[in-house]
């Protein structure tokens, strides 16, 4: 399927989920689905750098929080509509991704991963000490009382995050099948051989960090409105970094389907666990699943399915 029709399908799926959601009409359902959709965006974003390119980013929480705090700043200064804040948050994180790329992409493997973690810690410290956005105490965000076309603001946020998830997945799929995606895969497999095949590795890696950062930023931008109160502990939560790695790993990192499946599965499980057990069970759940998958199915659910379908199905030419 060509990129544009796929975007159509992806948007239609989001609309269908939205339709089903309002048919049930439960505020908690919106709230939970928002989180799952947000993880679809984060996992998909992470996978563009981690899965396609082979660079592990431990700093997802940093990007997410910068997206969120960009909205806080905008809210306190010019107070733009959310639909404008989202691309702004994305752009700020795109620049952050580009900068991170310039500073760290010459590092390989574990050193790159540590550098991204360090970046998130530095950003966290900066925000804690920035009183304009509330410092360590955090900031309250007052949601608009009502929003056009939607019954409630929660319903609106739910729709917005579904839209972002649909966009993120469509972008990831397009990247995967484009010349860019082929180049990223070559980098992941062997960077020196990639250069020797004419692949401009540094440039492509910068494109990947920028795009990945942008998507993480748009996932974070609506967050202050979703929680009404943001503090550094919430926005820089360990869960974002861990989940954005665990979801692609569990789903499968080689294609756009993996992070989507991983986020749906793990995101939903976590929501259920939060209600039935406690929110503390979430990370435990992720940890257990990670261990199981890394040992039993290192190529994730997608890898398992391909194995079941047999080599012929899995290796079939990927057209359109």
């Amino acid at each position, binding site marked *: 399927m060509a990129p544009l029709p796929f975007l159509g399908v992806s948007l239609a799926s989001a609309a269908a989920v939205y339709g089903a959601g309002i048919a049930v009409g439960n505020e908690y359902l919106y709230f939970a689905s928002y989180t799952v959709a947000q993880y679809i965006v984060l996992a998909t974003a992470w996978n563009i750098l981690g899965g396609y390119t082979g660079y592990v980013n431990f700093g997802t929480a940093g990007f997410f929080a910068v997206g969120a705090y960009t909205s806080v700043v905008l809210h306190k200064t010019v107070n733009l509509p959310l639909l404008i804040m989202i691309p702004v948050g994305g752009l700020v994180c795109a620049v952050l991704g580009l900068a991170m790329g310039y500073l760290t992409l010459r590092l390989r493997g574990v050193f790159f991963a540590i550098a991204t973690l360090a970046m998130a810690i530095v950003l966290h410290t900066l925000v804690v000490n920035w009183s304009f956005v509330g410092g360590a105490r955090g900031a309250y965000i007052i949601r608009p009382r009502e929003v056009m076309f939607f019954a409630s603001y929660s319903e609106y946020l739910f729709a917005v995050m579904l839209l972002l998830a649909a966009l993120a997945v469509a972008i990831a799929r397009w990247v995967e099948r484009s*010349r860019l995606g*082929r*180049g990223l*895969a*070559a980098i*992941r*497999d*062997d960077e*020196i*051989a*990639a*250069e*020797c*095949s*004419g*692949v*401009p*590795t*540094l440039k492509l890696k910068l494109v990947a960090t920028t795009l990945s950062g942008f998507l993480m930023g748009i996932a974070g931008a609506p967050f202050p409105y979703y929680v009404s109160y943001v503090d550094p502990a919430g926005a820089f939560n360990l869960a974002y970094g861990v989940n954005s790695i665990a979801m692609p790993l569990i789903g499968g990192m*080689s294609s756009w389907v993996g992070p989507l499946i991983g986020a749906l599965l793990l995101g939903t499980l976590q929501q259920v666990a939060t209600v039935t057990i406690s929110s503390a069970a979430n990370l435990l759940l992720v940890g257990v699943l990670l261990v199981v998958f890394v040992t039993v199915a290192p190529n994730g659910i997608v890898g398992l399915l391909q194995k079941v379908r047999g080599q012929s199905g899995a*290796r079939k*030419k990927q057209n359109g």
Partner: protein
Amino acid sequence: MAEILLSVVGVGKRFGGFTALEGIDFQVRRGERVGLLGPNGSGKSTLVNCVTGTLRNEAGEIIFRDERIDRLTTHQRIRRGIARTFQIPRPFASMTVRENVEIALLYAGAPAGNERVPHGATEDDAHHILEEVGLQAKADERSGSLTQVDLRKLELARAMAAHPQLLIADEAMAGLSMGEVDEILALLMRLNQAGVSIVMIEHIMYAVMKFSERIAVLVAGRKIADGDPQSVIADPEVQRAYLGE
């Protein structure tokens, strides 16, 4: 005589305190077939790495088609028309054989240098190149599972896909049977007839002597001989340093 395509002037390279290359002067003319000989560890692969940019040379200059290239990135040099094979094959292991070749077609194969290959063209080109090296039957196999021999063919296929003007084959025939050596020799000959200059690094003397119009010899990071094959082989210094051992 044809124009000089590649000119290596006074190139030196050190690894820590170890001198891998020193004062290397080496030229390749357009359309030429050059053999590069030398015992293990004499610096042949290091020279290739300096020419392609995988390593930076510390001393000297490298000029390709009248342009100084030794501060360009590797992919820029590849796009200007230099391709190489790796002595120890480096396939894109998660990709099929065809996809490996397509990477080079997509990123370096545009004849003009930087333009994109029109959509659809790569598949035909890849098919054609794989046929040339005898890998067409394995086009859809994962390159990570190929045998050593096939990996060497894939190295050649990927280098050809960059549509180079100069191809440096770093031990492309190691481990191949007599018949396969002849196949690859014939392939390199065909490429050369199509105008590609070729530097062949090889320990198989039969292949080098059959192929080369000129031979250069490295010993311990220095060039000790450079000339027509017969006189280089007869050179007492070469015999002592290399062939006689």
